[in-house]
Structure formats: C-alpha cells, structure tokens
C-alpha cells in the first residue's frame, strides 16, 4: 500500500496542507521545528489512531483551534487492480473523534484501522530497549492491531475490564480497612464475575501476544544480525507473563483463561489490600536478551539502537508477509545512528513500497535512500524538482 495524497487542516503547526505523494522514497528536509515530523505523525495517526510522541490528542490540534482533520488517499496494491480508499479522521480533544471511510461515517474510529498500516522508526524507539515494560507491551499490541485490526477491540475490552475491576478492588480495599475499624464488610459478590471477564479478555490478548512473539523471534534475530553486523551475540525475545516463567510458550485460549482465573484467585488477598489487579497481560513484559544477558541495563548505546531497529524491522517483515506492504516511516532516525548502521538500515528498507523519511540534515540520509525530496519550511511543504 502507499499514501497517494495527504491533506491536513489545523493539525499541529499546519493550518492547511495538500501533499501529493508517490510510492518509493520521499525525504522531508528542513531545519529543526519546521514541521517534518508533524507530517509523518499524521500518516501514522491514521494507522494507529494515536501519536508516537504524545499520549493525548490535545497537542495534535493546532494551538488555539478546536479540531484537526487528517485526510489521506491510500492505495491498496495487494489486489490485481489497485484500489483507492479515502480515509478521514477528525480529532476533537474532549469529545469523541470521528472517522470516515470513502466518505461514509464509521461507527467507531477504530473501524478504519487496517486500511493503512505503518511501521515507524523514531528516536523514541530507544525506549523499547531502555524504557519500562509498558513501552514493549505497546509495541506488541500495535503490531497485533496492524496484523488484525480486531485486536484494537480486544485491547479496548481488556482495558475496560481492568478499569472496572480495579475500581471494585479499590473500594473493596477501603471497605476492608473500614471493617477492621468496625465498618461494613466489603461487597465482593461481583468480583468473581470480573475475574471471569478479566480472564477471558486477558487470555485472548495473551494468546495473541505469545503467538506474535513466536513469529517475531527468528525475524528479530535475523534483523539484529543484519543491523549490528557481528555484535555481542544473538538477539533473543522472551515473553514474561504474570502467570510465571512456564507460561511463555504459545498456548490455547481456554488453557490461558483457566490459568488466569486461578492466578487471580491466588492473588485476591493481595489485590484487595493493594487495590489493583496483579495478574494479567497488563503486568507482562517482553524481555530482550543479547547472548546470555538482558539488553536492558547491559547493552551499549549502539547495541540498544540495533535492537530497537531490529524490533521495527522484524515487525515490518512480519506485516509484509501478511500480504500488504506497510508504509515505512523513518522519523529523524539517521541522525541517531553511526555510518555503518545508517547504511545497513538504508539497504534493508530501500525496496519497501513506500518510505517516508524526515531529516534536518540531508547528508544524514544515505544516498541510496535519496528518492524524491520535499522541502519543509515555515508552514509550507514544497516538492523539489
């Protein structure tokens, strides 16, 4: 797939932009703070309904205005005849966002997921290796959604169960403490019900993650080799589940649901005392290993970068094997890498169907990724040549 046209209205620094795009490589060049990342962030938003830079929508809307609109013409080239899809998202912080596909309103914004998928490399990726587990869970879940959009629903359902269950645990905890001082005993009659829902929704997410990690494992090892070109050892992935170390192998959903339910039962006393859910995929981590050592805390800066790139490259390979090339976005990454890693990364992505690159210094981008160039400066976007 590729994005043939991008239009923005009141998105980030842009009042209005109309930007035609081609398959192949496009490099956005311009001084710092001119709005290069803002453009690719918009494309990525259509693929994930989120930003890679901020958790909230408010900063995405041009300062002083109320809503932003991102529109794109996305060409699906996986069929014999290319098919155009017109995507539109209206972002209104504080209200429900709205989406349209080929001009008809979608029931929910997430119904448009899957029309365009992206794999985005950004300076923030270093946090995949050095950051907390939430970063790596999000990485896995984003790939799940890109592979099968229904996982956006699975994820949302799980988050909702978790919120409800935590609210109940919190009030139960408060009531338990009150009961010790002679107050009413907590009403735990519905906790069993939430346990059931947590374990069913959790098992679906967990099963999918375990299966995904199995699929990524060889691809990450291969990509790490290719980027690092003979580093300190093999790149390894281990899924660490709150169910314990024996639960890192792919398993069927019913088994996982039973295990989660049993684990929730064992943790109940603790959970009530602390007022939070202690078992489930929201507590899990994807442990990255280099040879015998964990990458986090041990790997060098360069090795950490290689690992982060390997995770992105592996997800790109995996999505591509699913039948349709995602749009590759390389946001400011070359400035972060040494020459060797730059060149090897460029070689690995050069044949992608569409690559969008941003760079403040054009010389940072390896020659083989030259492609067409778009100058970005003071709110205007201008194709060169």
């Amino acid at each position, binding site marked *: 797939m590729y994005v043939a046209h991008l239009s923005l209205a009141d998105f980030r620094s842009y009042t209005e932009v109309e930007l035609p795009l081609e398959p192949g490589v496009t490099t956005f060049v311009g001084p710092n703070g001119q709005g290069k990342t803002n453009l690719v962030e918009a494309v990525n938003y259509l693929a994930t309904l989120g930003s890679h830079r901020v958790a909230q929508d408010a900063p995405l809307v041009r300062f002083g205005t109320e809503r932003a609109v991102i529109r794109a013409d996305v060409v699906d080239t996986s069929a014999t005849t290319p098919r155009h899809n017109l995507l539109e998202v209206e972002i209104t912080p504080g*209200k429900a966002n709205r989406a349209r596909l080929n001009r008809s309103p979608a*029931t*929910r914004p997430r119904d448009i997921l899957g029309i365009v998928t992206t794999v985005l490399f950004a300076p923030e990726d270093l946090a995949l290796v050095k950051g907390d587990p939430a970063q790596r869970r999000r990485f896995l879940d984003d790939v799940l959604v890109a592979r099968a959009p229904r996982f956006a*629903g699975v994820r949302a*359902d799980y988050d*909702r*169960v978790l*919120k*409800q*269950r935590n*609210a*109940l645990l919190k*009030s139960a905890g408060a009531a338990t403490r009150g009961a010790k001082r002679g107050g009413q005993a907590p*009403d735990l*009659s*519905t906790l*069993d*019900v*939430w346990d*059931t*829902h947590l374990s069913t929704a959790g098992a679906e997410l967990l099963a999918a993650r375990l299966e995904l990690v199995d699929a990524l494992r060889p691809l990450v090892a291969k990509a790490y080799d290719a980027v690092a070109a003979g580093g300190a050892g093999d790149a390894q992935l281990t899924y660490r589940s709150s169910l314990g170390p024996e639960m890192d192998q792919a398993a069927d959903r019913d088994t996982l649901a039973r295990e989660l339910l049993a684990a929730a039962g064992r943790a109940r006393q603790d959970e009530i005392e602390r007022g939070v859910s202690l078992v489930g995929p929201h507590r899990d981590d994807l442990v990255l290993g280099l040879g015998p050592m964990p990458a986090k805390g041990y790997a060098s800066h360069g090795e950490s970068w290689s690992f982060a790139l390997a995770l992105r490259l592996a997800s790109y390979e995996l999505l591509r094997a699913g039948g349709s090339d995602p749009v590759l976005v390389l946001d400011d990454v070359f400035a972060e890498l040494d020459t060797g890693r730059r060149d090897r990364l460029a070689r690995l992505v050069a044949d992608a169907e569409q690559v969008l690159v941003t760079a403040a210094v054009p010389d940072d981008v390896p020659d083989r990724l030259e492609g067409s160039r778009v100058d970005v400066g003071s709110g205007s976007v201008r194709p060169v040549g």
Partner: protein
Amino acid sequence: MYEGVVQNLIDELGRLPGVGPKSAQRIAFHLLAADVDDVRRLVSALTEVKEKVRFCATCGNVAEDELCRICLDQRRDPSILCVVEEPKDVVAIERTREYRGRYHVLGGAISPIEGVGPDELRVRELMSRLADGTVTELILATDPNLEGEATATYLARMVASLGLRVTRLASGLPVGGDLEYADEVTLGRAFEGRRSLDV
C-alpha cells in the same frame, strides 16, 4: 460566567445527559429569547412528568399508576421474564412485537467505576419475584457491552440454583452498544434466537 440566574440555568441544563457546556449555553439563551407561553408549557410538562409518572411497583418500568401497563395486562405470559437495564429498553423490545412475556427493569448495570453494584440495582426485587416459581424462563436482555455482560453473568449465577431456563439474546446485536440502538428486525431476531446461558 453570567449573571446568577442565567448561570444557574446553564449549570442545570449542563447536568442533563448529552448536554455539554456549549449546548447548555445555547439552550439557555434560546429559552431566554423564547415566548413566555412556550416556556410555561415546558415547565408544566416537566412538573407533570415528575408528579404523574412513577415507577411500577412490580417491574420498575415507568408507570402512571401503582403498576405499569404491561404488568396490568392479563394477556402477558407470566412464565417468561425479560430483564433489562432501563425503561427505554422495554420500549425498544416492545417495538419488535416478538415478545409476549413480562419485564423486570434493573435501573442500570453493574459498573464499579460509577459505584453501581447489585445493591444499587433492583436485584433483590428480582429475586423475590422469582421465589414463587411462576417464572420458568428468565431472559437476560442487558446491553451487549461489558457492563451488560457482567450484569448478565452475575444474575445467571445468582439464579443458578432455582432451576430456571436462563437465556441471553442471540449474537448479531451490535457489540459494545446499547439495546435501544438496535433496529427492530435485528432485535426481534436476537429474541427468537436466544440461547441458554451456562454459568
């Protein structure tokens, strides 16, 4: 901020469901500009509804008397009881003309975030209605979203020992939504194809 009484009105309107601060302001200024008679009619409609309409002592549906129209109707089958969240769900199901049994309105769904547990719903009333054995089938028609499902699971477990046939509306209803938004045909089909719930 506006002068005291105007701001009061805006604040009151803003507490209504689906009315944000902007709409509240728009409605308030519409009322300020409106004909006195129009406003009086609205006021008396509001007063009347609070004075005349109450909730059915048996099922919790809206009623103009002690009992609602459906509970008073002798032709309705007393052996089937359909549990819904809100009176508006009764209206939605009645529209399908598929259902000839009776109702029980819970007054919401279990939602710890909003502080709603079984005690805040008409669960105890439901249990006493089931006690005499007249009801043989219980249809759990709570909304097809998480809170509705959780409420259905909870109720199914509560009544498990009573030996009733417990059913849930067939899938096909838009998941994550409200019962009231399902069209008549879909809802009617969901009723026909209801399936027994295992706990």
